[in-house]
């Protein structure tokens, strides 16, 4: 525990360094401090995850209901490791990415990482909420780092409002939980019977809305596609990779305080997962902004995690161990995997943005030749996120599939949701693969579509290394699933203690299946590499020429004639157009002899357009009537105070 404290203090200190030392080298010191802090902090986390040991410390603290009570147990440790890992890598990356601009942002960065650590290791409600709020606020300042841009400010506000609506629900949740014991300590939440506090469904709804807003469950996700593109890329990586996972952490920790789960919890989660997953990936498919596309993929992956949790809850409520183990196991493992590959993808998108100064996919192209390392890493991330072997995304998704198959039986009532989960997962996986063949294909393959892309260059070592490291991590988990299953064993045993007896059997069953597939996939890749090598050797010395693509006899092909992001995705977006409601400006030429024509497609968020915007407008119009009270006359303001005062006096007199 002392290591965790050291790490926290060092983190805030080294972040704060950038506030006081206005020197060009000060970000370097901040980053060095941050990385050291992360390395220190990761030690107790790994220890706890490996041995299953837990420890905690309390410090005296004078806050009503609060206690400075931090602890590490396997579940915390499992979330701590990606936090430390991704944050330190992203910090190194950010050093080159920011190029010494916005030195103050390192203060907020340090604060954000420290707040995430506090959030997942807090053992007291007040401390948790404080960590949660600091996390929100520091990331708000990071999102609005480029506050001179209007979209960044807009995104910041959307994020802030959404986050606070979530926190409001969490506050209610904690107050309800502490109602019977009067203590905000998590220890006192254990073994509460819902009858003492509040109906379980109420607590469940509060938790799902409160934590789901941060995690990005579908109707609550609207801040994600705004905030992620606006933030600097290394911050987007941290926010998408680990910060939104604190919502999942919260769900995993608090839902287990609510007593035995009912089947409808599982159905709810599967419903949320299907909505978030399918609609998230569809909207990703329709985007042109690379980072916005990735943000929608975060929603999709959160959906996959929710699916896993839904399967797990179905298993718990039905008393089926394999279902619970594989469901929760897949969900928890996907948290780690998503941190790895989504961190990698955002860093890759950032490298593209850094080098070409645009995130519009339609202005890019042909980058693989100019930025080979970035391209290869991005490809690894893309394959991993599509859930294909031999990378890590496959492992966690496969566990959820496996869980669903285990739970199938013609008589069991949960068969319907399980089939829905399975088909949904398959649809999500297919669409994700389509989306990333679009993203990778348009950005990295073909010819440059603009001068920006033509002038691209490979990024430096501080940016390359984190990407390669994360790509290595994706491959490592993919090839050695045993390692990952070992890592989730203790957290799972902690989540479902009464089912722990058969835990090992279930996991080893999953392991056998997984390693077989992974090894065969690895062997396939090895074969391809071998073939490529042989091909190279064979062709060495015999030069083939390079010529332009055959253009059906057209005399003047240009780079603008390639597939664009919209045209590549069109078959799929057309299929789902009732859902996506893309807006099309201009029209493609229809005459036999084409004239000048232009076409722009936009796909704004359907929930924002159809639900939030009208509702918020209503509310605003309603509240605008109250503005007559704000007239700027001091005398009348004082009059309000007097009226209130007298009313309070009278009220006080009425009740003796």
């Amino acid at each position: 525990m002392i290591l965790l404290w050291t790490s926290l203090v060092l983190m805030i200190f080294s972040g704060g360094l950038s506030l006081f030392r206005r020197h060009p080298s000060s970000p370097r010191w901040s980053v060095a401090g941050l990385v050291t802090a992360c390395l220190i902090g990761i030690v107790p986390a790994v220890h706890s995850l490996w041995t299953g040991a837990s420890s905690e410390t309390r410090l005296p603290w004078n806050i009503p209901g609060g206690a400075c009570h931090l602890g590490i147990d396997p579940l915390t440790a499992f979330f701590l490791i990606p936090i430390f890992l991704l944050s330190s890598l992203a910090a190194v990356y950010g050093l080159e990415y920011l190029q010494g601009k916005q030195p103050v942002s390192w203060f907020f960065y340090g604060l954000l990482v420290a707040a995430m650590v506090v959030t997942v290791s807090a053992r007291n409600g007040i401390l948790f909420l404080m960590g949660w709020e600091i996390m929100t606020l520091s990331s708000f300042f990071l999102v609005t780092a480029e506050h001179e841009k209007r979209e960044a400010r807009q995104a910041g506000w959307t994020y802030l409002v959404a986050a606070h609506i979530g926190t409001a629900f969490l506050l209610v949740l904690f107050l309800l939980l502490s109602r019977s014991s009067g203590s905000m300590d998590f220890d006192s939440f254990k073994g509460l019977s819902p009858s003492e506090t509040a109906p379980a469904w109420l607590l469940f709804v509060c938790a799902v809305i409160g934590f789901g807003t941060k995690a990005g469950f579908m109707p609550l996700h609207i801040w994600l596609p705004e905030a992620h593109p606006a933030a600097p890329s290394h911050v987007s990586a941290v926010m998408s990779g680990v910060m939104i996972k604190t919502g999942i952490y919260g769900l995993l920790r608090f839902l287990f305080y609510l007593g035995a789960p009912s089947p409808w919890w599982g159905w709810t989660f599967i419903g949320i997962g299907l909505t978030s997953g399918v609609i998230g990936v569809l909207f990703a498919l329709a985007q042109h902004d690379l980072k916005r596309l990735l943000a929608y993929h975060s929603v999709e992956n959160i959906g996959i995690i929710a699916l896993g949790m839904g399967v797990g809850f179905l298993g718990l409520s039905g008393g089926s161990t394999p279902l619970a183990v594989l469901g929760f196991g897949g969900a928890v493992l996907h948290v780690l995997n998503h941190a790895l590959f989504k961190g990698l993808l955002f860093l890759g998108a950032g490298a593209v943005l850094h080098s070409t100064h645009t995130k519009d996919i339609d202005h890019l192209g042909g980058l693989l030749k100019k930025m080979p390392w970035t391209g290869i890493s991005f490809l690894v991330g893309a394959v991993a996120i599509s859930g294909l072997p031999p990378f890590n995304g496959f492992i966690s998704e496969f566990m959820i599939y496996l869980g669903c198959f285990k739970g199938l039986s013609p008589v069991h009532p949960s068969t319907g949701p399980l089939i829905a989960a399975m088909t949904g997962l398959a649809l999500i996986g297919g669409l994700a693969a389509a989306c990333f063949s679009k993203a990778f294909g348009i950005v990295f393959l073909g010819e440059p579509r603009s001068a920006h892309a033509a002038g691209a260059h490979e990024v430096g070592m501080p940016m390359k290394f984190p990407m390669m490291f994360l790509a290595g991590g994706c491959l490592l988990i993919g090839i050695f699933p045993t390692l990952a299953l070992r890592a989730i064993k203790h957290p799972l045993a902690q989540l479902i203690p009464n089912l722990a007896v058969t835990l090992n059997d279930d996991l080893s069953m999953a392991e056998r299946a997984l390693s077989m597939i992974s090894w065969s996939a690895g062997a396939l890749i090895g074969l391809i590499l071998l073939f490529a090598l042989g091909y190279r050797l064979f062709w060495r010395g015999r030069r083939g020429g390079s010529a332009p693509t055959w253009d059906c006899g057209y005399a003047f092909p240009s780079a603008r004639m390639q597939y664009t992001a919209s045209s590549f995705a069109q078959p799929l977006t057309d299929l789902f157009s009732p859902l996506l409601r893309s807006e099309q400006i201009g029209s493609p030429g229809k005459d036999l002899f084409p004239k000048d024509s232009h076409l722009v497609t936009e796909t704004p968020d359907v929930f924002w357009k159809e639900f939030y915007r009208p509702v918020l407008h209503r509310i605003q119009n309603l509240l605008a009537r109250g503005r007559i009270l704000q007239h700027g006359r001091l005398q009348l303001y004082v009059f309000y105070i007097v009226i209130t005062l007298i009313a309070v006096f009278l009220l006080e007199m009425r009740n003796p």
Partner: protein
Amino acid sequence: MTIDILWILFIVSNFFLLGSSRLHTYIRVISLQGFLLSVLPWFSEGPVSGHIVAMSLINGSTKGILFPWLLSQAIRRAEVRREIEPFIGYGSSLFIGLLGLLTSFWIGNRLIPPTATSVFTAAMALFTLFVGLFLIMSRRKAITQALGYLVMENGISILGMALLQHDPVVVELGILLDAFAAIFVMGIIMFHINQEFDHMDTDRLNQLKD
């Protein structure tokens, strides 16, 4: 019995404030209230202790002498003499003051149990508070509002005495510090308002709202 004379003086001074238009009169009356306030602690229960003397001295010197002096300085610099065109005329102000006095008596004793020293403490506190707030509400000049604020602070001081009989020093000092800072700031602001706009009618400041 003697304390009732103090209360009568308080009531009269409050009505004086409501009915007069000359700023210098305001300041003199407020100075008088400050002195009255400094005498009040002598009537509290128990033997005369060190802190009563100290409080009396501090109250007298600040509210009786320092604040009025600061305010008359401000008036001189701002070159205003009278409160003209109040929102509520002097006659109506007096009448509303009367209603306020009645309400204060009615509420005061029900809300706060009468102290051993006097049954009127709470009522007086509420009345002074009310007059202060009413001055802020009904007058136009920034300086009158600062004066109203001071009167309100006096009311709060009396209330502190009524509620916390035994150890009011901390509260008292807090209020004094508050009032001091407020007067200081207001003096500066009034000066600047005057410089900037050539008047200090606060009702025209509403153009500054967002």
